[in-house]
């Protein structure tokens, strides 16, 4: 007797959001929002030291987007 194996697929919607994804997205949100909206040299100072506060590379680079998005500047 020939056995027939029937495979069925069950697709269901799972609403639970993985914790690792939540953590990644919250970190990206925090860093990106701070970098574009508020950084005055703090991020690059982690590598450059105090020189970063004078240079404010990120601030100057994202300057136009900062103004355009409504963040306070200057």
């Amino acid at each position: 007797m020939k056995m027939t194996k029937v495979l069925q697929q069950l697709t269901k919607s799972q609403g639970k959001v993985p914790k690792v994804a939540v953590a990644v997205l919250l970190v990206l949100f925090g860093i990106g929002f701070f970098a574009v909206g508020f950084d005055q040299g703090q991020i690059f100072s982690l590598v450059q030291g105090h020189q970063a506060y004078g240079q404010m590379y990120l601030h100057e680079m994202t300057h136009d987007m900062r103004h355009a998005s409504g963040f306070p500047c200057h």
Partner: protein
Amino acid sequence: MKSLHFLTVVLIAGLLAGLIHGFANIVLVEPFLDTAIGIENQRMFTSGEAKDTPEFWKTYSDYRLWQKQGSIIGGAMLGVATGSLFGLVFAYSRHVLPSQSEIKKALLLAAIMWTSIFFIPFLKYPANPPTVGDPSTIALRTTLYVVFLALSGFGALGFSILYKKMQRKRSLAFLGYAVFVGIAFIVMPPYPDKITISMDLVNGFRMASLITMTIYWIANAIILGLLWKKFQPNSVTTRI
């Protein structure tokens, strides 16, 4: 929900919407920024801080070109950041958002988030072009902006949780948020800086900012909705 699928969908949607925002700013906002920075330059010439020479304009031109390129990069960064928050809230709330269409759900959520974390703070502390802000008040202005943004954003979150828990008279949650944010609007002090340049320039800049931020939120919602519909990161297929 698969982490990698979910993250990919959310981050691509944020990145693409951010790039659209950046290019929209190049077209709509940059002319106002150039005019405002031109006023700053004239003030520097008048005060003797800089000299009106060909060398100045060459350096200035190169610098502005770099800043405009940076505006696109900044758009991508802000798009990924805001898109991350948007995607996260969408994942948690899509099952309670009305409509069968992922795009319509995303657009509705975008409208709620645009209102609470952009438009209401914008009404209280509107975007300003360069020359308006006094550098000595940046810490105060940043504090005011962040506090009001947090009040409006967390207020919306709190009242939305209340909305879900309420069995009857759910419209009271909207009213509660309106009263809460209205009180914050009245209690919070205005920006301390006096505007000394043409209000036509300031209002034109604000309108352009409002338009491009709105473009960003619509773009993020449509792209996220499309990608969610196509890849369904919340679906798990099992063989039985």
